[in-house]
């Protein structure tokens, strides 16, 4: 009985691992066939949240490694001042807030995507950056300053590719027209600013409220004494 269950468990684990690997591999299909790819990613459940998280973590890793390990001829970051966690957070938080803002806005204007769909599509759209920038770190130690154009062309390709993927991804996730997607991209930025403002207001109110109770407590202690 136990043996059967453990075998079932093993099979299930192996199947899950297989699905995860397939969804990772599906990333390479998405970046080359974005229109089909993003549609199937969401609607045919070809993608997985695990793979999305993996891509995001890999992206952050690449983002930081690029600053730390690229030859100084191409990337000169003041390493004595920068904090890698801060660097990673400076991408991660805007990224998450933008996902949230996009979801908040698109649900109001008949976007088809759920928050997890948007997040997944955005994470898959980061893949070209990882695939190009990681080898570029190695390349930077082989080429010289005169050949910097190769480096900069590839680096800009990686970013432009990502931006295009974000655009197509949002279009497919929400089933929007290109024009509407563009408008929502701009609106998303404003939405993110509003969210930031709300967060600031929330924390300042929270600290005021806490301050009130703290002073109340002090007053009582003072009177009792």
């Amino acid at each position, binding site marked *: 009985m136990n043996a059967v269950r453990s075998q079932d468990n093993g099979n299930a684990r192996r199947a899950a691992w297989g699905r995860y690997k397939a969804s990772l591999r599906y990333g390479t299909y998405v970046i080359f066939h974005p229109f089909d790819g993003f549609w199937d990613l969401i609607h045919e459940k070809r993608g997985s949240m695990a793979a999305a998280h993996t891509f995001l973590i890999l992206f952050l890793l690449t983002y930081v490694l690029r600053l730390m390990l690229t030859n*100084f*001829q191409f990337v*000169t970051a*003041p390493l004595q*001042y920068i904090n890698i966690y801060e660097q990673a957070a400076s991408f991660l938080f805007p990224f998450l807030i933008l996902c949230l803002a996009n979801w908040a806005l698109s649900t109001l204007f008949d976007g088809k995507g759920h928050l997890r769909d948007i997040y997944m599509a955005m994470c898959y759209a980061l893949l070209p950056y990882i695939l190009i920038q990681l080898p570029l770190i190695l390349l930077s130690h*082989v080429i*010289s*300053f*005169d050949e*910097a154009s190769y480096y900069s062309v590839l680096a800009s390709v990686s970013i432009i590719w990502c931006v295009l993927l974000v655009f197509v991804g949002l279009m497919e996730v929400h089933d929007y027209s290109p024009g509407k997607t563009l408008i929502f991209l701009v609106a998303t930025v404003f939405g993110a600013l509003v969210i930031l403002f709300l967060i600031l207001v929330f924390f300042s109110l929270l600290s005021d409220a806490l301050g009130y109770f703290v002073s109340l407590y002090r007053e009582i202690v003072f009177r009792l004494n």
Partner: protein
Amino acid sequence: MKRMLVFVMACCLCIMVTGPAVAAEDGFSSTYTYNYDYWGDIRESPDAYRVEDVIYSTTLNLETPMRKPQSLYVRDQDIYIADTGNNRILQVRKNGTDYTLVREIRTVQGATPESFDTPSDVCADAEGNIYVCDTNHNRVIMMDRDLHFVREYVKPEDSTFDQNLSFLPNKLVVDVSGRVFVLATNVNKGLVKYEADGTFTGFIGANPVTLSMWDYIWKSFFTTKEQRAQQASFVPTEYENIYMDDEGFIYATNTVFSEYDLLYDAAKPIRRLNGIGNDILIKNDRYPPIGDIQWVNDSAVEYGPSKLKDITVLDNDIYVAVDRTRGRIFGYDPQGIMLWAFGTKGNNAGAFLSAVSIEHMGHDLFCLDENEATVTVFTPTDYGNLIYKASDEYLKGDYDGSADTWRNVLKLNANYNLAFIGIGRALMRQESYKEAMDYFKMAHDRQNYGRAYRYYRKELVESNIGWIVAIVVAVLIIPLVIRRKKQMEEEVQEYERRQIAR
């Protein structure tokens, strides 16, 4: 006892020269002399210059002390001081380490009028002729060595010169053939240029008008005619001061600009003007020559960009500018790389209240302070001399010698970027590329690092060509062999299967 006394005196001198008390108040740099590193941070540095002497009115035994002197000029051993407030020019001669007054020039024989009114600049040529910007008499006056009137340069009677403006010459330079270039107040078309015979031949080097897109849109579409009339029109700004180097190029400084322009090198506070008035200053550093890069200061009065009041160019094309905002002196090499910066505000020797003019005699610097009415004489220290020696040796083509000198500089100041670059270049010439790369990397010199790296990579490839070929062959051939082997095995199996089947 005597030795003790000498020691105490040496200590006093050190304190006097470096002025630690002044530096501490400054809240900006903890040393008198400093430099900027690749990141634009202040790096303390040994002193490149020390105060050798301060020339006061009493040093020269003047009956009336100097009042608001505006300008200095050095020709051979003579220092000319335009003592503007007293309407006279002082000629001071350097004898060894003493400075003695040769003469006070108050009048010019044969000129009308003979006296000066607020002379703001003075110049002397190789024959001993003296030129004076006699500002409030609206003329530049030229006299011979015996102070006889030769000629005057007055308001150009030309349609290009606005005849309603009074001609107020403020600064001047004279080139080897006697052409006079005058920087006049209220004239924004550039420098007024006269031929040797006194004829006006036009303007050169107008400061180009800086106008942002937003300004243009705002002024053209959102203001009424009346408003526009009240606002200042878009005019080029005037230069602050000018200096002519040995090759006849005019160095000009400019203090009217916005801080925003400074960041993107649009302000160009230091310019080198060629014959047609274009800026040809070489800027090969990460930061353009703008004086201070960091403006942190406690007092709000001294915050802001450096305002370069005057500039002088040494014989080795190193140029030195003096800043009014914080009383600092900046030295730049011909490539536009800062060599050193020193100075501060204050009353001590080596500090300035309001530095207005700078000149040089050999490698010595003379700096005139308007409010203190003193001339401070700076002479290079061993460290300063080493820097000059290294760059001279490099210019002469003695690369190995210059590398040795740069090594000595590094012993005194391990933060000196230029020394790393200098050593790296010499190493590259000696074909030790790997070592050169290390030095260039220290100085963040990408171009030179890239160049050294190319040679190094070539060397590496050439010496390991056998291995590289072997690896490439292996990568190409081994899969082929494996595939062939598999194929053969399959064929054998197929054959065996057929054999069994039969």
